[in-house]
């Protein structure tokens, strides 16, 4: 384990029902009912985030990381998506059983979201200032003038130069990085306690990506927000996350503090993922690959969903699904050989 102290959330109690977490997802199941059959997109995901910490949810396409976020925000397309089980508790109250109006209030004020594609998330026919001011007018009952004043402050906060004049611009007049800042400003407008960032920098260039990640980290620190960072980028995660949950085929396969995870991955999938990454600081390393393809969610392999691609797979893996085993601290891994991996040098 690393010796660097990281602020982590209280560990789940024995009864698994600590009331202390700001946002807590428990045993969430979501399926998509499509023409070709039922795709089990999320199969029992549990994670939590507390004020002031960053939880990174890491996974490849189809792992269910974004669908989880959409379910939390209540923007899952139904149909085809249906929540079949589980709970999402925000400050102890289950969002899934809440009334529509109550839930709408949580959105924006309790939990806000930043999307990957800022251009399609912003309305192209209104100015940026109008869109933010509207938010204050509708949700806070402010006058239009006050709304614009708050909008200016927000654009200043996200470091958009000449905020006052840029309020009159339309989304397409902003560059990619600036547009992402506008979206962050909108997400922050109602002082949310949890910010979900779904691949916030995937569409951006590296130099701009670094700026945006810095901004997000700074805002999280200043406002003591909880942040869920959804990404496929192992580099970004290493830079900003406190804790990491790795998802595969709709399940969390490993959960750990960031230093522990990179220092000693305890799930073969995480291990293989880190091994397959080309690195800037190493030349000529052999790139280890993960054989095969990500699973078809219509027909998830039996037992451990990763077993057809796993190097360590044995007979038990195709018959018995490994539970998420706690390995001490905030660490857990869903592998039959997790303890073996944990115990290795």
């Amino acid at each position: 384990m690393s010796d660097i102290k990281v602020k982590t959330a209280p560990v789940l109690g024995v009864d698994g029902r600590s009331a202390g977490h700001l946002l807590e997802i428990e045993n969430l199941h979501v399926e998509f009912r499509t023409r070709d059959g039922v795709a089990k997109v999320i199969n029992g995901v549990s994670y939590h985030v507390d004020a002031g910490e960053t939880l990174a949810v890491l996974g490849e396409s189809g792992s269910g990381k974004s669908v989880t976020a959409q379910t939390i925000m209540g923007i899952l397309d139904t149909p085809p998506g249906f929540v079949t089980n589980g709970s999402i508790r925000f400050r102890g109250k289950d969002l899934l059983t809440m009334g529509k109006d109550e839930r709408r209030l949580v959105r924006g004020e309790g939990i806000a979201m930043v999307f990957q594609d800022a251009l399609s998330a912003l309305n192209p026919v209104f100015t940026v200032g109008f869109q933010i001011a509207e938010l204050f007018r509708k949700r806070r009952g402010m006058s239009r003038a006050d709304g614009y004043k708050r909008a200016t402050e927000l654009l200043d906060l996200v470091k958009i130069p000449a905020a006052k004049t840029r309020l009159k611009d339309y989304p397409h007049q902003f560059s990619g990085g600036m547009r992402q800042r506008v979206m962050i400003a909108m997400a922050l407008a109602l002082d949310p306690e949890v910010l979900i960032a779904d691949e916030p920098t995937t569409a951006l260039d590296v130099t701009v990506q670094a700026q945006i990640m810095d901004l997000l980290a700074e805002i999280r620190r200043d406002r003591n927000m909880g942040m869920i960072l959804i990404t496929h980028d192992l580099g970004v995660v290493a830079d900003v996350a406190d804790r990491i949950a790795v998802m595969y085929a709709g399940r969390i396969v490993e959960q750990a503090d960031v230093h522990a995870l990179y220092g000693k991955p305890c799930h073969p999938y995480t291990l293989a993922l880190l091994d397959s990454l080309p690195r800037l600081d190493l030349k000529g390393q052999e790139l280890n690959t993960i054989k095969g393809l990500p699973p078809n969610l219509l027909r998830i392999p039996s037992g451990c969903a990763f077993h057809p691609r796993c190097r360590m797979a044995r007979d038990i893996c195709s018959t018995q699904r490994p539970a998420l085993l706690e390995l001490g601290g905030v660490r857990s891994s869903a592998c039959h050989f997790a303890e073996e991996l944990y115990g290795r040098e």
Partner: protein
Amino acid sequence: MSEVILEVRDLVKHFPIRQGVLFKRVIGQIKAVDGVSLDLHKGETLGIVGESGCGKSTLAKLLMNLEKPTSGEVRYQGRDVLRLNPADQRRLRRNIQLVMQDPYTSLNPRMTVGDIVGEPFDIHPDVAPKRDRRRKVQELLDVVGLNPEHINRYPHQFSGGQRQRIGIARALALKPEVIVCDEPVSALDVSIQAQVMNLLDQLQNEFNLSYIFIAHDLSVVRHIADRVGVMYLGKMVEVGTDDDIYVRPTHPYTQALLSAVPVPDPTVRQHKAVIRLEGDVPSPANPPSGCRFRTRCWKAQEICATEPPLLQIRPTSGHPSACHFAQEKDVVHAG
């Protein structure tokens, strides 16, 4: 070093910006590629990195002759590609092939895999007699690690990584010497990226291919390239071997770019030398005078606004670097 197979000299591509309904006036020029020169040696991989809008994709199109350059030369084995007659040009195309970024749009959805990979033979019928084509297509599928039985399937029946393999098979069909790879792995998942990169590596050894590997991901380029060129706003700002660029970068832009790349190792985050650039890339329609990077550069002086720095070896830089104040600095391994 082995012989130079592809030479690019002062390549320029300006796209006119037009306005008007019936009579379109030219009101400006987007300087997408503005005087790029490079050499590609036999059997090597030349990486080209840069952010969006730096002109690297336009460069790929120019190399493939999909766009006509405003000026400049592309020489293949000493012959100027752009001044050949159409018949010679077609023959020459066999030797330079393209692998594209998006595996979802680069394959015609209404053609079977067999038709897609076999199309090069239809276009150049003298390469393979008709009765051999099916076998050749199946061999190609096998070479790129696909099941040869899947010849009658359509692209949408394959995953992203498999589609990229189909695109690679198509590029290999005419036994080219040079393959221009335009962001070939950036649309793929991490676990699939490595598979495709290893495949490209393996094919290079097997067929003695030369690659021009265009990407925005510096880690990917580091892994695969022998030499690297860094582009910014239509110009090459630094060229060198991979160690020159990654260990001894001398151009401030290269240094900033490298330091912005997140390293998948949380232990380095505390003591990483971070250079944060301010603002965005300026518009290529109206690039800054002198050095194009000066508006975001922390080293900028008066000379940078008046005198464009040449891409050349300098007293402070052992490899070509286009900066008046070139200075070696290892940002990747710092700490």
